[in-house]
């Protein structure tokens, strides 16, 4: 996660409070992708992710003084606002938690980098030679395989309880440290560590489960 100095953030927010469009554009361009991705990973719904992102930055426009540099980074503050909006939405409509379409709301996995593929090959996609890996029976290394892997992991993440899902999204997908995640989640570092450990164990269990027949037939087609 990209973080600027608190001083810089505070200065930008002061300019935003004075109506400086350039300052707002700078903050938005720097921070919004992470917020959008966070909301997207948490809901699996691009439309909701857009709404949440917009609400987060509207809150910044309405009351830039809510951010206190002494309490954390601007990024952490924005994640916290996004998290509150997500929770409100879940309170209103529990259906948003359901992640029904696998990778339907996400774009095709055309951007997987070589590093990730190398890691998959080195790690468990082939089961490490013992036939017990998470992604056993994966097809040959092509775009489809990568998409399939991404879809399965996303699906597994989406079925985690919220508390566990958010630590996975923050610590694994947004690469936050335990301390940064603890700041966003407003909980002790030890809680983040234990939740992440538990969440990863749950993900391993979920990914061990056989893939749904629907997927298998789709592959066959």
């Amino acid at each position, binding site marked *: 996660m990209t973080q600027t100095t608190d001083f810089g953030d505070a200065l930008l927010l002061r300019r935003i409070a004075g109506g400086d469009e350039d300052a707002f554009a700078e903050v938005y361009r720097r921070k919004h992708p992470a917020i959008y991705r966070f909301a997207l990973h948490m809901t699996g719904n691009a439309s909701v992710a857009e709404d949440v992102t917009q609400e987060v930055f509207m809150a910044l426009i309405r009351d830039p003084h809510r951010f206190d540099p002494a309490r954390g980074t601007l990024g952490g503050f924005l994640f916290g606002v996004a998290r509150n909006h997500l929770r409100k939405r879940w309170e209103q409509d529990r259906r948003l938690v359901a992640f029904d379409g696998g990778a339907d709301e996400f774009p095709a996995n055309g951007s997987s980098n070589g590093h990730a593929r190398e890691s998959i090959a080195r790690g468990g996609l082939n089961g490490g030679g*013992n036939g017990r*890996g998470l992604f056993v029976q994966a097809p040959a290394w092509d775009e489809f395989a990568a998409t399939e892997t991404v879809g399965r992991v996303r699906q597994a993440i989406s079925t985690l309880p919220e508390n566990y899902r958010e630590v996975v999204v923050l610590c694994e997908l947004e690469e936050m440290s335990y301390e940064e995640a603890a700041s966003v989640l407003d909980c002790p570092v030890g809680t983040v560590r234990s939740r992440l450990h538990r969440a990863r164990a749950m993900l391993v269990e979920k990914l061990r489960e056989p893939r749904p027949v629907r997927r298998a037939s789709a592959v066959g087609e």
Partner: protein
Amino acid sequence: MDCAQFESIVHEIERPGTEGFALRESALQHAELCDRCVRLMIDAEALDAGLRAVMSAAAAQKAPARMEAELIAELRQRRAALLGRRVRLQIAALGTAAAALLALGFSLHHWVARTRDVAARVASPPAQNPVPTAGAAPNVVDADDSEYASFQPLPYADDPSTIEDGAVVRVEMPRAALASFGLPVAAMESDGTVRADLIVSADGTPQAIRLVSQSSTNSE
């Protein structure tokens, strides 16, 4: 390292800055000797790979470009509203200041007028004050002599001419009370009452006295 310890750190072996990362070497050594733990490690690595793939797939994800334009428009609108409110506040503040200045000016004018009136009353005592008759209390002089000449300053009192905000009060007092003002009163004449004008300062303290002749009071 034992299996329980390995299991507690297996998910952070690849995460710098963690306990698992610090114990990475001993964890790998343990995994080489333990079939169960090596499977745990392989699963953890596979999960890492899957998560990295998800992260890579989402790396380019961002909100649509129109959102920035909409937010900027909102910011512009709020700035305009803020400016409008600021102008209204400034106008209100100026109005309040003007009203306060007017009130202050009016009060000042009123105070000056009142002060002049008091000074005029002190300077021009009632014309009907006569010269006391023989045997009356002393120091009753003609009002036309000078500004304060007809008044007898009381002991410990300020100079009547320096009183800025005072009043002339006519009173009727026991003749004996004149002695308390330090005026000489003959013992035989200490009965009855006498009328007098007192210059009273703003705090109500008598500053000077002038006896009013009986004939004058009767004529009033």
